[in-house]
């Protein structure tokens, strides 16, 4: 506020302010909502030459979403566009050439990555996501096992019209309710890529055929015949920025046991008093501790897991009320968890030579100078590690049923 004097400066200043406000108030960067194309899902694949990037995007079609007279209940809620470029940005520019509206990435909650692209390395994609203003750091990255991201983007989901929302829902449910997957945001992946002694894991989906018949004419626009859907396939395992293999859903749960990050989970145990009988147990609490000691530069890894579980259901099950029956069930559960964990260790550490457990990170944090000495040969050192798994299970209660008669 100008308070001083009767000079002409305040009036001049006010005039200048209004001229500036009208003429230079950011009109260069204006975004009108009717000019925007909202990308809801992004797919990245490797081009046929192996050097190029294929970018596929879902652009929202708001007009198709209404349930009223103007709505089209069978119409796809998204339009699919695709383009090839040397980099993600170039492919993006080429897609933009085909769109009547300006691309905005902020609503792209899912970035699907085809297996071929991931095996070639995700550096370029992460660079694009980090540099660009519009994509969100919170977007989730999803691998497509055994297929291209573009194939996943053709998939439909019977109970959810928006594919990105369906995929997000599937991964979230699998992460929290069965622990067979894990949500990995762009920021998580970037952070892990730059972390010493920790390799990236990323949620994986695989395509699931839904019907024998092929899509009919117009299926590109309508979803009356759903031929392909998708389901959780565990996690993709990386070595540095390249995909090197997979953990299936059970091995993924094994990884969550080791990390102590299990959500809800149902495990099977053999019924102690019935041949072929099976008992489902719900894990209610989990504690996990990983210790690493070195003997002549060869690590000895000790994984101690403590779980508390309750009985979810029992098939062909006589009484589980006796302390002995519960004890036997606990032993069975311990064996089952140990097998899952060992399977995860075998595939990740020995076969894929990937430190998805962050054992190198643990060493780096406790003894950074030793880590610097060992980091170059860390994968080989880890492969030779002796791993011991100790599981202690406690079945605390039998849920709402005292006895199965």
């Amino acid at each position, binding site marked *: 506020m100008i308070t001083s004097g009767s000079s002409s400066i305040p009036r001049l200043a006010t005039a200048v302010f209004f001229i500036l406000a009208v003429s*230079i108030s950011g009109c260069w960067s204006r975004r009108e909502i009717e000019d925007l194309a909202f990308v809801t899902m992004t797919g990245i694949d490797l081009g046929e030459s192996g050097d190029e990037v294929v970018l596929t995007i879902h652009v929202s079609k708001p007009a198709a979403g209404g349930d009223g007279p103007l709505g089209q209940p069978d119409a796809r809620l998204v339009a699919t566009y695709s383009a090839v470029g040397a980099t993600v940005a170039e492919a993006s520019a080429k897609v933009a050439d085909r769109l009547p509206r300006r691309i905005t990435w902020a609503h792209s909650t899912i970035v699907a990555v085809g297996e071929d692209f991931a095996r070639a390395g995700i550096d370029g994609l992460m660079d694009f996501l980090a540099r660009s203003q519009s994509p969100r750091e919170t977007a989730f990255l999803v691998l497509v096992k055994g297929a291209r991201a573009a194939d996943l983007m053709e998939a439909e989901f019977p109970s959810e019209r928006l594919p990105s929302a369906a995929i997000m829902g599937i991964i979230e449910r699998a992460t929290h309710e069965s622990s067979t997957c894990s949500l990995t945001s762009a920021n998580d992946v970037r952070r892990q890529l730059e972390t010493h002694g920790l390799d990236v894991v990323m949620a994986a989906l695989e395509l699931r055929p839904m019907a024998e018949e092929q899509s009919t004419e117009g299926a590109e626009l309508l979803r009356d015949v759903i031929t392909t859907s998708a389901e959780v396939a565990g996690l993709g395992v990386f070595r540095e920025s390249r995909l090197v293999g997979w953990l299936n859903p059970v091995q993924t749960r094994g990884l969550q046991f080791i990390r102590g990050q299990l959500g809800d989970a149902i495990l099977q145990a053999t019924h102690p008093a019935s041949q072929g009988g099976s008992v489902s147990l719900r894990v209610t609490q989990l504690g996990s501790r990983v210790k690493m000691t070195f003997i002549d530069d060869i690590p000895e890894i000790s994984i101690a897991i403590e779980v508390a579980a309750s009985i979810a259901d029992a098939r062909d099950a006589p009484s589980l009320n006796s302390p002995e029956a519960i004890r036997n069930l606990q032993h069975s559960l311990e064996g089952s968890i140990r097998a899952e964990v060992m399977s995860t260790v075998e595939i990740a550490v020995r076969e894929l030579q990937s430190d998805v457990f962050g054992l190198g990170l643990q060493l780096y944090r406790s003894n950074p100078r030793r880590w610097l000495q060992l980091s170059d040969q860390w994968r080989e050192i880890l492969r030779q590690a002796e791993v011991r798994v100790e599981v202690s299970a406690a079945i605390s209660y039998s849920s709402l049923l005292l006895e199965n008669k």
Partner: protein
Amino acid sequence: MTSTKVSGRQLVALLVLVRMTPQTLNCTTLNAVVIPQIGLVADAIGVTMSVPLIYLVAKAGAWNHGDTAAKGMSATIDRYLAAAVNVLLIPYFLTAATMTLASVGLSFSTAIMPETPVIVFIAIIAFLSANAVRSGVEVIGRLSETLTPLVVLALLLIAGLSINRLDLGYLRPIFLPNGFQDLVTPSGSVFSFSTLLMVVYALAPHLDSPKSGITCSLLAILITGLLIVVMCIVIISAFGPATNSILLHAFTLARTASLGPFLQRFEVVMMAVWTVGAATSTAVLLWAAAEGVKSLFALRTSAPLAYALGMLVTALSVTGFRSEVDFVRFALGAWIVYATATAAVVAILSLSITLIRGRRRQRTL
């Protein structure tokens, strides 16, 4: 209320805003660290180093209380010393204002509105600041008193909303791969921005209580130190080893912040913080430079200098830095040397002024 003096609370608010503004824009310290965790040690060292400097400067400034520096300089030696402090601080404040404007302009342009020329943001903020300077320091003080709590609240809000994405494990290990030399540039960076609090030298004569300048300056260092450490912890925990490759840390943090799945895009909050912080901070620095010129040349008022200095720093901001990379390079190179050298000389001069005037006062008593 039309008090012509700045209260202690307003002084703390002003100093906090001046120091925190660079932190909310481009926290270059975190670009200088070999491993991000070192940033915490650098913060502690840089902030601690600034305590004696600001104490001396505030004390030297307090001698001018109740009088303009020109009138107060009736004695011989300290008159020249105080003039020398002004000679050093005028270009220093103008450089700091230039950096603030350039940083906010480049931040807006890089992060949000790439099509809009940088000069648009710089010119508007410089204009607002120059207007505030013309209105006097008490107006800037009142502005800060209102805005600083909001800025602090906004920063804490963003930190709080990022809590689900934090991994405190990334705060370990704190070690120096190449020895203590790893700490030199980051600590120097923190210290160089802490020297902005030397603005208290110009503010001290305008305080309603002469002694409060020292206490309030130390309180401001404490508050900003805590805020800087909290922000540093949150940023390192959120981005891990990627921290030192990111530009605009607080803004990037705001991009990851969310309240459930329904309330996102908190970068808008950061835009507000940038605008408010940069405008007020530039106003204080321009005002301090104008006051320095007034003292040096025994002018009656500094108000007419506001627009001229505003135009000068606008021109320097636009032409001096072509990109964020230029800015980071300058902030981690020449600026550290310049700010540290200026601070060192000002500290010595301030100590001399304090001793000379202290002795004279004892003799008078």
